[in-house]
């Protein structure tokens, strides 16, 4: 499936490194024009392709690696989000819960992208770890996935496996997924847990 990473800061670059490690093509986008990203993209690997935001949101899987509120800007870039798989790798740390109407931040993003099939994931590790080799002593680094769309988790889990991670599906965003989110100024239990799966 075609993939793009929206955001080319520390997390976006870490994700790009994960794709490059496995020679999987991925589009990358930032506020700067594609040509400005080219040198860094080339340095990360030949499968990292800078694109415009409008072109990148055409991908089948779109990964959000941006500061939380910037999803509102990204939302306008696609004519339709219907059926598109969106991986929410953001963390709304420091965003007051009242500003989210008490909802999990991923639900807020999901509502801003009508029809998108949102999966929260790739958000629980700092960029330096996320971009590192996920193969550790023969085990694979764990990624937690949560979603209100059960079948959307499957292709994201498949992508995580292609990248060498061990996906662990938790369940719905508001309930079990709440274990791996930022809420106000707190991080919940599974955030920052660097775990490796063996069987």
């Amino acid at each position, binding site marked *: 499936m075609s993939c793009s990473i929206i955001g080319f800061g520390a997390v976006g670059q870490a994700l790009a490194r994960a794709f490059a490690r496995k020679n999987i093509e991925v589009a990358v986008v930032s506020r700067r024009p594609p040509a400005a990203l080219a040198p860094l993209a080339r340095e990360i690997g030949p499968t990292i392709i800078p694109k415009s935001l409008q072109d990148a949101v055409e991908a089948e899987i779109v990964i959000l690696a941006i500061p939380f509120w910037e999803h509102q800007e990204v939302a306008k870039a696609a004519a339709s989000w219907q059926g598109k798989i969106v991986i929410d790798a953001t963390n709304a740390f420091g965003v007051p819960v009242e500003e989210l109407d008490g909802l999990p931040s991923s639900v807020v993003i999901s509502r801003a992208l009508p029809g998108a099939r949102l999966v929260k994931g790739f958000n629980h*590790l*700092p960029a330096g770890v996320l971009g590192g080799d996920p193969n550790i002593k023969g085990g694979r*680094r764990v990624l937690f996935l949560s979603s209100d769309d059960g079948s959307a988790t499957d292709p994201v889990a498949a992508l995580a496996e292609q990248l060498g991670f061990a996906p662990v599906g938790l369940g719905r965003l508001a309930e079990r997924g709440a*274990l791996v989110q930022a809420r106000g100024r707190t991080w919940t239990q599974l955030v920052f*847990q*660097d*775990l490796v799966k063996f069987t």
Partner: protein
Amino acid sequence: MNVGFIGAGNVTRTFGRHLINAGHRIVVSNSRGPETLTEFVAALGPDATAGTKQQAAGCDIVILATNWVNVPAALKDIDWRGRILIDATNAHMDPEPDISLAGVTRSRAALKGRTSSAIVAEMAPGARLVKSISTLPMAWIQDFSPQKPRTVIFTSGDDEEAKRMVIELINSLGFVAIDLGSLAVGGAMHEVGAPLSGIDLHFVRRLR
């Protein structure tokens, strides 16, 4: 710390040995009486003693480690009020646990949407219940050396202080207990057939 076991099977043999290696003492009980446990505790050394179920329940922390079908009998005739009880059971409905997908699906259906710990809590009124240890086959923690991997042991409970004591106990053995919150949310995630049950996770580090 003194730790009591109700049930004398694989969990007790394995976890008991880890506890003793870390300097704890254990009391082991079963349904047939302490005299049937002489060899069992002898194999674990002088820090393990056989006792009655009531003696096991008198320890600082009590571990329920029986097959699911035996849980009602195991919890009977003990005043559980104020006692810290670790639910290390897995709700397999058959006397011989059927861990096939079909067996697990059947066992989960029999819970009728309840968590297995809610059922245990009902049978041990007043206990400060913590669900832990249950989610991994004992075959995965047979390395008793100090270099053993830091295996993740998910833990949940509604009594924060009891849960903290259990987490400290498990961490004292060289494992890593990860708190998943309440029994209703977290406990449901690491019972039989749930996403955090039966996966062999090793802790690398907590990054912040």
